[in-house]
């Protein structure tokens, strides 16, 4: 007699169904509305959560296996990097400024993304997005951890790495990235997905990762390159999720289109402003440059972004409202922002410097329409001031934008010689912006942005009350070590001495 033997293993399809979709159930003690109270107030209508596609069909057990394998490889290389004085293989210690900004401003963003995805994984009623968001939440906390570990080796030798968590909360330039993530985390679950899942992970991620990961490879930083490889397969999954979510929302109900378009407009512009920091790294901070900010924008913004919005046009989506203004800013933003970072470098936990003659030649070649006309005269003047023993420091501090929290360094879209001044009154208070894009974001939800914690006005309130020395203590900035011009820094001196010991017989 034939006995039917029970199969020991589930097939891939069965396993996927059992371990994801079968985890959902119809509640009987509470209504769905009580279980998922935040899914309706943004106005997005979803009729059938089962229509959600899971492009990777990844189950949790397989996820753990892949991630564990990547961790083993990652930490083996990080150990080797530490044991072999990998830091001396850098092109130059100027490179570390880019890394310090990444650690202070972007790694905490990974952690914020972890919290955000963990939250929306709970708030969405569908099992498909719940599982995908759970995996992404774990990815993001892993990225934050592995970045901290990859860079901790530099903290043994160099300044500016030691207080990244305090600085994430208190120093001024980090509030740009922080407010970006706080804005998304305090939005509803659908807006969070468009902000982080779509705009950040899909539209802008290449513009962030190319300078950092390729920049690391070009400049001999094996630790950060290894992190990049370890994160790459996760990023592919995140990008797919980001694209899936927008298509899913748009296919569910035509009423969703204007809401989604408004979020795309907002989060494109907010993301573009965060990238202001990145543009300075590509054009100024990497000793061995990968490509200019303008070239990166051509590839990842104009070509890839253009193709994406063409693809989304069938749902009625149009390119983001700030797209044209962004295009006009490309040849100016890195120069305008780097001038700021240099003149306020007494207040940064990384070093800035005056570009060398070689650097300026490169900038002229990459920005033939703007650098020599507008920016070289300012750098030449700053160079003269430094040579005269009176280096340029701007103690005036800066007006910050109420929305993006960057100093208002940007000019009118059609006049690069005039600062863009924008202001509005709301409930008898005055608010200032760096651009029309940021003003629009504010005017859509003023009650949200009037609470912005702006680090410059904060400096004149409790507990610092305008005392710059107290402020430095409060933000854990070691004056004379972490800040100032690279030319006079301990980092420069030490790197040159150590590299000399490693490569010569002196």
């Amino acid at each position: 007699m034939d006995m039917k033997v029970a199969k020991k293993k589930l097939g891939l399809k069965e396993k996927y169904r059992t371990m994801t979709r079968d985890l959902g159930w119809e509640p009987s003690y509470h209504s769905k509305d009580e279980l998922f109270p935040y899914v309706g107030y943004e106005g997005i209508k979803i009729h059938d959560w089962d229509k959600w596609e899971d492009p990777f069909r990844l189950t949790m057990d397989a996820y753990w296996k892949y991630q564990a394998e990547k961790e083993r490889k990652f930490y083996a290389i990080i150990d080797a990097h530490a044991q072999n004085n990998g830091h001396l293989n850098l092109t130059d210690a100027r490179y570390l400024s880019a890394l310090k900004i990444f650690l202070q401003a972007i790694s905490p963003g990974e952690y914020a993304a972890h919290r955000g995805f963990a939250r929306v994984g709970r708030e969405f009623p569908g099992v498909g997005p719940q599982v995908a968001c759970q995996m992404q939440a774990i990815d993001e906390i892993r990225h934050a951890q592995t970045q901290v570990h990859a860079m901790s080796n530099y903290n043994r030798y160099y300044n500016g790495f030691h207080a990244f968590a305090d600085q994430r909360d208190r120093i001024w330039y980090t509030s740009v990235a922080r407010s970006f993530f706080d804005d998304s985390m305090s939005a509803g679950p659908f807006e969070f997905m468009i902000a982080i899942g779509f705009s950040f992970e899909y539209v802008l991620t290449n513009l962030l990762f190319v300078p950092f990961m390729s920049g690391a490879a070009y400049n001999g930083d094996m630790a950060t390159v290894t992190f990049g490889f370890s994160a790459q397969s996760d990023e592919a999954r995140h990008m797919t999720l980001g694209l899936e979510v927008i298509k899913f929302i748009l296919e569910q109900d035509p009423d969703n289109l204007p809401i989604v378009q408004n979020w795309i407009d907002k989060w494109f512009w907010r993301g573009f402003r965060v990238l202001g920091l990145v543009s300075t790294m590509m054009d100024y901070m990497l000793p061995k440059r990968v490509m200019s900010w303008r070239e990166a924008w051509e590839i990842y913004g104009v070509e890839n972004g253009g193709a994406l919005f063409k693809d989304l046009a069938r749902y009625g989506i149009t390119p983001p409202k700030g797209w044209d203004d962004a295009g006009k800013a490309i040849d100016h933003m890195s120069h305008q922002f780097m001038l700021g970072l240099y003149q306020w470098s007494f207040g940064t936990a990384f070093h800035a410097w005056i570009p060398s003659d070689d650097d300026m030649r490169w900038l002229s070649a990459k920005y033939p329409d703007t650098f020599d006309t507008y920016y070289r005269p300012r750098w030449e003047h700053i160079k003269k001031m430094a040579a005269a023993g009176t280096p340029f420091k701007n103690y005036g501090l800066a007006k910050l934008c109420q929305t993006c929290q960057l100093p208002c360094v940007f000019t009118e879209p059609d006049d690069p010689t005039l600062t863009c001044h924008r202001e509005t009154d709301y409930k008898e208070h005055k608010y200032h912006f760096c651009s029309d894009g940021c003003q629009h974001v504010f005017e859509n939800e003023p009650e949200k942005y009037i609470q912005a914690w702006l680090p410059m006005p904060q400096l004149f309130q409790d507990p610092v009350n305008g005392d710059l020395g107290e402020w430095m203590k409060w933000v854990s900035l070691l004056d004379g070590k972490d800040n100032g011009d690279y030319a006079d820094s301990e980092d420069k001196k030490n790197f040159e001495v150590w590299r000399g010991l490693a490569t010569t017989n002196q």
Partner: protein
Amino acid sequence: MAVAAIKDYIATPRDRVENFHGKQLVYVSWDRHLLFAAPFLLCLPPETPFAELVKGPLSMLVQPDPDAAAIDWTAVEWLKSNQPWTPDFDASLAANGIGHKDQIRFRTPGLNSLAPAA
């Protein structure tokens, strides 16, 4: 609605004037002088005479610009909230109508050492 929220939501502005212990913020910028990367943020008592703002912090802050010594403060063109405006140098900020977080700008036609030739 002023914010997308699950119920009525009223926030408190973070930079209210009472947080500045008797002082207020004033933003000042020098048009077309972009050696200074952003408008200056000053924190002063509202009783400060306008002349003192100009002779004190403002004159000191603009020093690094090669045009600074040539500024004729009596001939400067002023704007407040982006509109032409004439300050009374002897009156206080408050008497000049310069409120908390107001932006004033000034123009010095003819002075443009670091600006591109027109």
